[in-house]
């Protein structure tokens, strides 16, 4: 069975309507179906690994929007034994310290991405 690496760069694209990130959701669904998958967060998507984020409170007229719960979804990915990596350089550039990360997120240096890709058979770039 092939090993997949989902590299997620584009972030918060339609998380209000979808109430999740579609790439994280897709990868999680693959895992539920039996696939061997990992996730690498890079660029602005490293913010998905930040604990305590809260998108609640949005409403349009009388219609309240629940919004995404990225902490729940990233925690669920980790609980499902999907390896979840975040690029350390991208975290540092955005001023996100390790203490703010959801437990279980692994940091990888940008220089180590090529090696990480080599350990997987197929890459899904989002």
């Amino acid at each position, binding site marked *: 069975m092939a090993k997949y690496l989902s590299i997620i760069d584009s972030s*918060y*694209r*339609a*998380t*209000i*309507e*979808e*109430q*999740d990130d579609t790439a994280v*959701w897709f990868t*999680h*669904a693959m895992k*539920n179906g039996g696939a061997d998958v990992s996730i690498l967060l890079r660029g602005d998507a490293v913010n998905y690994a930040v604990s305590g984020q809260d998108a609640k409170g*949005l*409403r*349009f*007229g*009388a*219609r309240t*929007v*629940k919004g995404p719960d990225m902490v*729940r*979804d990233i925690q*669920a990915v980790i609980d499902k034994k999907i390896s979840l990596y975040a690029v350390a350089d991208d975290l540092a550039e955005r001023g996100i310290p390790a203490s703010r990360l959801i437990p279980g997120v692994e940091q990888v240096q940008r220089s180590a991405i090529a090696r990480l890709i080599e350990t997987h058979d197929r890459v899904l770039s989002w």
Partner: protein
Amino acid sequence: MATITIGIMDPPYESANTPTAFRLVEAAIRKGHNVNVFCYEGATALGFAGQKPHANAVHGLSLEEEDHPNPKEWVKSLLTFAGEKKVKLVWCNCGMCVDERGVENQVEGVCRGSPVDAWKYSEASDGVLLIGTE
């Protein structure tokens, strides 16, 4: 009270531009301004009545628990909200864009027009904002 025209181009479920546009419309109505929304290209699907909420197996939530929002509900809610605030909200789709996508079945209150209508809305407005796709 001012009149504002906002052009939207992104389709639903694809971009953060969509909730941003809705937030701007909501804020303008809340402050008592009239708003013309002109939906171009993929944005004409925002009011498509065929959108359906779904349960979410990955979240482990039922249809009711997920409470999945469809932008058509936001359009309806904003049209109602404008009525409550006694301001005018026009939600106009580019007709050809609608036809291309087969999204003719729109929620009540959405109208059909052309770029000329968008221009007329603009001419009659105090301010115009076009939120194009990236």
